């Protein structure tokens, strides 16, 4: 099925609840080729041009089409709008993948190392889920954690992102120069209007994690009215704070989130070091 408009796509999904919507197919076809997925039918979203762009709402929100490709998000006009999302899109994979892989696909796949996910979590973005005759608005984090999952026949159509007009950073550690899956990633955005710092750590857990206490603490250390300076020691402490909050002592072992008595595992120590460095550098860049 190749609907030409959003309404047609939603109708098609309503008529065939088992059909799988497909946009860039970079994740879907990999699963099909590996034999993990045999969709009964597909709803191709490639012809729905309205989902491939974005619009503004209320002056303070960008509504991004789920069909935005990573390559499009990397362009300067978009990067000026939501810099962290552009950074994440730029590192998401080789050009072949970025040219077809979409924002909506990254959210729907919800891979732990999905590069746009920590950015959307830090931005506190929400998504619009459309079904025949109705739409609903769900925070990205609720969707990812399964608190409010995608229902049968629903299509992810728009992603609403607040425009903050302030520095944003996305950093990821991969251990190589070429495109690769993140071992850890950090998205950090400043929200000067609310005098807040929001941060999310990706790839260390099934969903992006928000170190809320560390965010609140570091927001208090920043001189918001002046040049937004911060004591370097506070930046370093923020890194450690974020790492300790997001990587449990038993990381890498079974039941990692349960209490561990014998101190952090070697894997946890390594990952914390990486997350701490990323968070410190992200804050440093954002306040530079």
């Amino acid at each position, binding site marked *: 099925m190749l609907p030409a408009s959003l309404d047609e796509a939603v109708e098609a999904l309503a008529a065939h609840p088992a059909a799988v919507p497909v946009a860039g197919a970079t994740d879907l076809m990999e699963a099909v080729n590996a034999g993990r997925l045999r969709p009964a039918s597909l709803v191709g979203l490639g012809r729905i041009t309205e989902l491939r762009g974005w619009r503004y709402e209320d002056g303070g929100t960008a509504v991004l089409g789920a069909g935005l490709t990573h390559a499009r998000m990397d362009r300067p006009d978009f990067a000026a709008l939501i810099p962290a999302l552009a950074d994440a899109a730029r590192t998401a994979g080789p050009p072949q993948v970025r040219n077809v892989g979409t924002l909506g696909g990254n959210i729907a796949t919800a891979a732990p190392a999905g590069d746009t996910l920590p950015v959307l979590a830090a931005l506190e973005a929400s998504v619009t889920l459309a079904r025949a005759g109705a739409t609903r608005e769900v925070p990205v984090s609720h969707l990812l954690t399964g608190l409010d999952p995608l229902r049968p026949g629903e299509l992810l159509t728009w992603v609403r992102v607040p425009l903050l007009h302030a520095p944003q950073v996305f950093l990821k550690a991969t*251990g190589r*120069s*070429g495109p690769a899956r993140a071992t850890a990633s950090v998205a950090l955005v400043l929200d000067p209007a609310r005098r807040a710092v929001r941060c999310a750590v990706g790839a260390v857990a099934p969903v992006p994690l928000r170190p809320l206490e560390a965010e609140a603490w570091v927001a208090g250390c920043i001189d918001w009215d002046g040049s937004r300076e911060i004591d370097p020691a506070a930046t370093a402490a923020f890194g450690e704070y974020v790492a300790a909050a997001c990587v449990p002592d038993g990381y890498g072992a079974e039941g990692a989130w349960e209490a561990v008595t014998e101190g952090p595992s070697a894997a946890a120590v*390594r990952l914390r070091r990486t997350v701490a460095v*990323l968070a410190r*550098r992200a804050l440093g860049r954002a306040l530079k």
Partner: protein
Amino acid sequence: MTSPTDIGAAPQQDGDAGGTTEPFGLGSSPLRSDALPKALGIYPYAADLWAEGLLWGAVLRSPHPHARILGIDTSAALALPGVHAVVTATDLPAGPDGSPDGAPSGPIVADRPVLAAGVVRHHGEPVAAVAADHPDTARLAVGLIVVEYEPLEAVTDPEQAFTAPPLHPDGNLFRHLPLRTGDPDAAGEIIVEGLYQVGRQDPAPLGAEAGLAVPRPDGGVELHLSSTDPHGDRDRTATCLGLEPDRVRLVVTGVPGATSDREDLSFQVTLALLALRTGRPVKMTLTREESFHTHTSRHPALLRYRHHADADGTLVKVEAQILLDGGAYADVSAEALAAATAFSVGPYNCPNVFVDAWAVRTNNPPAGRMRGEGALQACFAYESQLDQLAARIGVDPVEVRRRNVMATGDPLPTGQAVTCPAPVAALLDAVAAEPLPALPVDDPDAEWLLPGGPGGAGDPAAVRRGIGYALGMVHMLGAEGEDEVATATVRVSGDHATVICAAVDAGQGFATLARQIVQSVLGVSEVYIAPADSDQAVAGPAARGRHTWVSGGAVERAALMVRHQLLQPIAADFGMSVELLQIAEGKITSYDGVLGMPVAEALEGKELWATAQCRPHPTEPLDEAGQGDAFVSIAFCAMRAVVDVDIELGAVRVVEVTVAQEVGRALNPRQIEDRIEAGVAQGVGLALLEDLRTEGGVLANPSLTGYRLPTALDTPEIRVAALLEERDVVAPFGAKAVSAVPAVTAPAAVAAAVRAATGLPVGRLPIRPEDAVTG
């Protein structure tokens, strides 16, 4: 007959041709013959093969690294519509020793069953196979085969293999090779020790295994696949199928490039068996995951070293223990072990050497041939030791190497004198003299140059630069008494020549080289290379740099014989000796310029054929003290790696690798540089990225997402500082093989550079980010 040194005359001519003709003859750099078709996407690979009425094959593989097979029920698979045959070990003809489950096979030791019978010894070992009329049906049928396993304890630690119960009737020890030379009581003032570990590198050929088997009316079978050893594969297939070798024909099709043996036996024998069973052509294309399961990888190694040296760094004694994990089956482990042992000290002189080396069987995936097998693992260890020694005595790493390097005529620890050119000091000087790359600048536009790549998390303040040196060596051709021989036929008719030789161009560029050889000898520009198949005379496997030497030598001799046949009647007519005539640009001319006859005219419509063999001088096996003239010739290489390390994240970027290599004679300079770049890229991959991990014997990352191959961004700038040409008198053309030694040396050079940048010991390959984080 003209001596080999005389035939270099031709290439000079292409300079005055006004640049309009293609480069021509030895010493020039014509484009590889498969380069354009591969770049344009029109090159036919084995996966593109098609035959009328073909069936599709699929293989069932063991999910366990070690298990007893209690029973196999194929009835559900056979009942599936569209399934034509399901085969297991019991369908194979009885082996020569009467074993009911078919003959085991293997390149040196026959210990590997085609399909597992009774017991599976590694994850992914083939157990059964299906032929069906659609690939999906075949895979579905594979899923319907019910195998009852009793999982057994898997031996995955090679150190446990010695004491574990035997995993195979042949035992767990493939080979123990002791090497003893000199005075065991010798001791030096300085002692450095180290424990080194090398991971499992996979050849990960981009073209996964694929092939087509066609049954023949005479009861035989024709196999179309991208084998790199058509005759060896044919013979082993025939043995396993209980056929005469003549009844099996192996046609080499579309080799997508190989840095190891292509096509494992279970793949092609199973394919042939399905074709014979169904009486129809059968095609099989492996998935990426199966490809990781089916071909052999590099031997993971554990090396323990102790170097004794004088206060000035001169080596006194080297003691080493080397353990290679050969995996479930022997393959070429014994040969890899010989290389690791013989080159355990590297291209350095040391009077007292005591090594114990073992290759053992485990339940890990089988290891086999892969660019510099054995030599690479040893190179990482001995070069790491020399870095340690340099640090201990406070001397520059280059200087400590300079004080110990061997020269032509010096002995190996095996007692063999290195009679081939060994200008190791000159190579080292060549890389050390090259200017260093510019330092990274604190400039946002240069951000992509930071470790971690473009858009990465790199921070200039945390980047440290390191420079490392390494010297590597690897033998060429089969070692330890293996009979090395190749046969080639050259035909001339009209204005073109044809080479018929079963040497497979697996990416090393043999086809291009053979064309250049014939161009040089016969002066004809159009040379066709016939496709290789097993009905031609034996040329042996494409490995260990053999084909440049052995098959190239055979082509040269055959071409010289044709040349003689062509020129002799003319020489007789003019009353001069053949040596006074030369052929260039398709014309026969005499030394005095009186004669000028086109080759086509001299042929008078005849076809001239000649077949010749090349068989290098014999070698001998290493004895119980590791002594013996085991190698025909040795290639050497010096390398300098420059790396930037983000010492907080452990990200490493190799900035530049500078290479100086001894090539004997550069037959095709551009192709040599290509091969060096390929070798360095593979070596950098092993040093930083490539590791086929196993968890309890089960492959953890059999995909190109999980198994990280170097991309263009991970591959450094590769500069060739010098190609030293000192002709090896025993080699045809005086040329040495070039592909393996850069791959052997690069990991050691990168490790040395990371060591210099971080001050950490770096005793493990690949270097993980956590191994390069300081503090």
